[in-house]
């Protein structure tokens, strides 16, 4: 009998059909990834396996059997016995998924005591045991810490420890590494792999990232609009996708090892940062977010800035456009000192929701730079806004619509149009695609490339995703703890990195090929053993 047996599952929230007649099964000890873009219903499926939609007003039809329990027919009591004991779930955001008020060991012990009739003391000991198992150093002592005293990766380990506590047959991991930096992501994926090998539990991995799936599972199920598009062994599906959508999806995934067919480099420096430093806080508490960073941006080329969270890349970006003043060092635009904002240096922001004023029509937002520089002729403003909308691939007639009427990708296009309205020479893009699905991401990246070629723009492309940065950049600066650790032509940095940090970063990027992923995992483990 298989561990999970889903037959003809549909989940409806009101008029919305989030999951549409989906069937799949998972054998004991096997690993399956549900891969899909946002809105594909993959997380809803994960919730349905534990009956989490019960009592929320969702309409669930079809049959779900998990570890011998008929989830649909089970009583509340039976459902509780399933949750955590036979099938345990690991969530995306490890900080918000733990109670901030209790020690981590106590939280694990609480869950353990729900399913095992043991003393408090025994449960606490069990908590320490599983924390130790997931690689928390000094587990006895750290089990008394509360979640905010742990780092992101440690918290995710703690959540996995909680899942292990009752030795479940099935682990459901819902985007377990999405909130983590790439090096930490690699560690967590390795941990999941090791645990699975040791305990023989089944794994259902929900992810938007094909690379993460390739690293972790045997079988893959590509979802779209609540239904299955394609399924099969992960190697087969990724190497030779049968369906058009799968191909589209895979084509959109940026490859960290693909060389950029670059634009001809020029030597004309437009924007330059010289030894800039930025501190936050004062006196003893002052922290330098950016420390002695020098970069140059040349006309018509893209400078990629890549780094993990806290590396200071966003602060650097804000200084480049003049939104933040450097504490020390200087900026130069076309050879002249550059302080404060300058229409010729614009920015595209990360969050497509907060970068547009929800109370103003998109046409108004785009017209802002025009009006700010003194244009009064309404006809001309309107004409120019329509032109810009068309240029970024939107319907010019949507001029009077409000931001909430657009999707994330469209909003990002509007942000680009607004930046273009000022006729800039440089656009700093701060994680412009990290909130977007891969297919949309590819479209926006393509648009930026087109605009760059057409207008001779210089771009600064700030991102945490090494593959995206490689895809767009001519030069790359790798940042860590406020400093640039390595800087140079993109191909050099990616193909023959000089710094060990860069090498570690690159080694942590999930590979799309399961074979390669296995090799890399082995390689990662070796230094740890040695």
């Amino acid at each position, binding site marked *: 009998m298989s561990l999970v047996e889903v037959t003809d599952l549909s989940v409806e*929230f009101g008029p919305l059909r989030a999951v549409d007649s989906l069937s799949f099964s998972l054998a004991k000890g096997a690993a399956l990834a549900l891969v899909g873009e946002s809105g594909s219903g993959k997380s809803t499926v994960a919730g349905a396996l534990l009956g989490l939609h019960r009592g929320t007003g969702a309409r669930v039809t079809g049959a779900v059997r998990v570890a011998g329990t008929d989830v649909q027919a089970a009583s509340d009591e039976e459902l509780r016995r399933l949750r955590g004991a036979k099938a345990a779930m690991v969530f995306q955001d490890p900080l918000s998924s733990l109670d901030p008020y209790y020690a981590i060991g106590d939280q694990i012990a609480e869950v353990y005591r729900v399913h095992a009739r043991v003393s408090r003391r025994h449960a606490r000991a069990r908590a320490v045991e599983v924390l130790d198992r997931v690689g928390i150093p000094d587990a006895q002592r750290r089990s008394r810490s509360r979640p905010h005293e742990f780092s992101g990766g440690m918290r995710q380990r703690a959540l996995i420890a909680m899942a292990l506590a009752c030795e479940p047959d099935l682990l459901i991991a819902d985007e377990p590494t999405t909130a983590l930096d790439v090096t930490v992501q690699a560690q967590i994926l390795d941990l999941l792999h090791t645990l699975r090998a040791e305990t023989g539990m089944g794994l259902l991995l929900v992810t938007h990232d094909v690379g993460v799936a390739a690293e972790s599972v045997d079988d893959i199920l590509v979802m779209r609009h609540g239904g299955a598009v394609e399924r099969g062994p992960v190697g087969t599906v990724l190497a030779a996708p049968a369906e058009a959508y799968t191909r589209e999806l895979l084509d959109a995934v940026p490859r960290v090892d693909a060389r950029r067919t670059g634009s001809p480099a020029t030597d004309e420096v437009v924007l330059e940062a010289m030894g800039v430093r930025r501190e936050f806080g004062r006196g003893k508490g002052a922290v330098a977010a950016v420390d002695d960073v020098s970069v140059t941006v040349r006309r018509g080329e893209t400078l990629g800035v890549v780094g993990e969270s806290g590396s200071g890349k966003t602060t650097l970006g804000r200084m480049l456009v003049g939104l933040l003043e450097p504490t020390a060092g200087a900026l130069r635009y076309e050879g002249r000192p550059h302080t404060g904002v300058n229409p010729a240096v614009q920015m595209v922001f990360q969050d497509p929701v907060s*970068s547009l*004023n929800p109370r103003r029509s998109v046409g108004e937002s785009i017209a802002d730079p025009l009006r700010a520089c003194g244009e009064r002729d309404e006809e001309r403003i309107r004409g120019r806004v329509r032109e810009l909308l068309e240029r970024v691939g939107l319907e010019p007639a949507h001029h009077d619509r409000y931001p909430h009427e657009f999707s994330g*990708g469209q909003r990002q296009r509007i942000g680009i149009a607004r*930046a273009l309205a000022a006729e800039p020479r440089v656009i700093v893009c701060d994680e412009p695609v990290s909130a977007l699905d891969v297919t949309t991401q590819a479209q926006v990246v393509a648009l930026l490339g087109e605009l760059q070629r057409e207008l001779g723009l210089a771009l600064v492309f700030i991102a945490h995703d090494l593959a995206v940065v490689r895809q767009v950049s001519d030069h790359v600066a790798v940042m860590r703890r406020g400093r640039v650790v390595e800087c140079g032509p993109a191909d050099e940095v990616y193909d023959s990195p000089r710094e060990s940090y860069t090498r570690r970063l690159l080694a942590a990027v999930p590979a799309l090929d399961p074979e390669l992923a296995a090799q890399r995992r082995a390689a990662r483990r070796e230094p740890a053993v040695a």
Partner: protein
Amino acid sequence: MSEALVTVEAAGTESSVPAASGARQFWRRLRAQRAALVAAAVVALLVLIALGAPLLTALEGQDPTTYHPSLIDSARGGVPVGSLGGMSADHWLGVEPQTGRDLFARLVYGARVSLGVALAATVAQVILGTVMGVAAGLGNRWVDLVLSRITDIFVAMPLMIMALALLAVVPGDFPRPVLVALVIALVSGWSTTAKMVRAQTLTLKNLDYVAASRLSGWSTWRTAVRELLPGLAAPVITYAALLVPTNISAEAALSFLGVGVKPPTPSWGQMLTSADVWYQAAPQYLLLPAGALFVTVFALTVLGDGVRVALDPRAASRLRVGTGSKREARAEQAAPQAGTRARRQGGAKTEAGKEDRA
């Protein structure tokens, strides 16, 4: 009130970037709440009564200040003559013990004082609070420090005590209702409003669209007016709606203590001062002002809650607690157009999709 609590309180009023929530959407959401509608009707009726007080009393043929010694039994300590506290065709709700003044007239004129003082105080609180809050939020470190300290002091002061003390020192010839409104406004309400506005300003200030406006070349001042102030409207209105009933209670309390509106101006709180002595002989002398006060404050509170829900849909949806995927569905319902369009485009990120990865 302590720092921590103000944050807790303000959390409920913080607006969740209501997508183009125009006046129309507000009305639609308000209309959806039956309790708020009933409350709104009651409030409207009260306002009409207050405005039409001279008309109503003329209809009855009485005024609120004339003594009617003939209608009270001075031998029994001033109890109204006749049954039910002197109710008659001339005096619809009876007369006041001891003075014989018409109760109906005093009650409707009392509504004028109550609502008038409360509204005036609210306007003053909102203006003062918004100005202080925006200034603290936008000003530099020192401006913020000084203004926040001042605000904190006023947050800490107990309303009743300060109002009492202030009313003691102000000369008696100052127009009393205006004074009461000013004192209420000065010692309460504005400070919590200022704290909330400051917090909101700080949040809005760091939003990317404000940065984008600055990058467009607009001055800081223009950016503040165009991008910040509209974002403050919803939370400030919400707060104001909840301040009105509090101010009504405050005025009544001050008058009850004998330091608010001075006789002969009628006020509900003042009427209650001696009501406990007369409740057996003239129960309506207690019940009418108490009832009027209760109904007014209750209706305004319910209405204020309704306004909050209408302006901050999140407050309403807090009732329904579910998993991320459910929120996903709700958001999808809220923006069905965007959702379908996005899917046609090949799964562009939608409003709903945020939940998946954000």
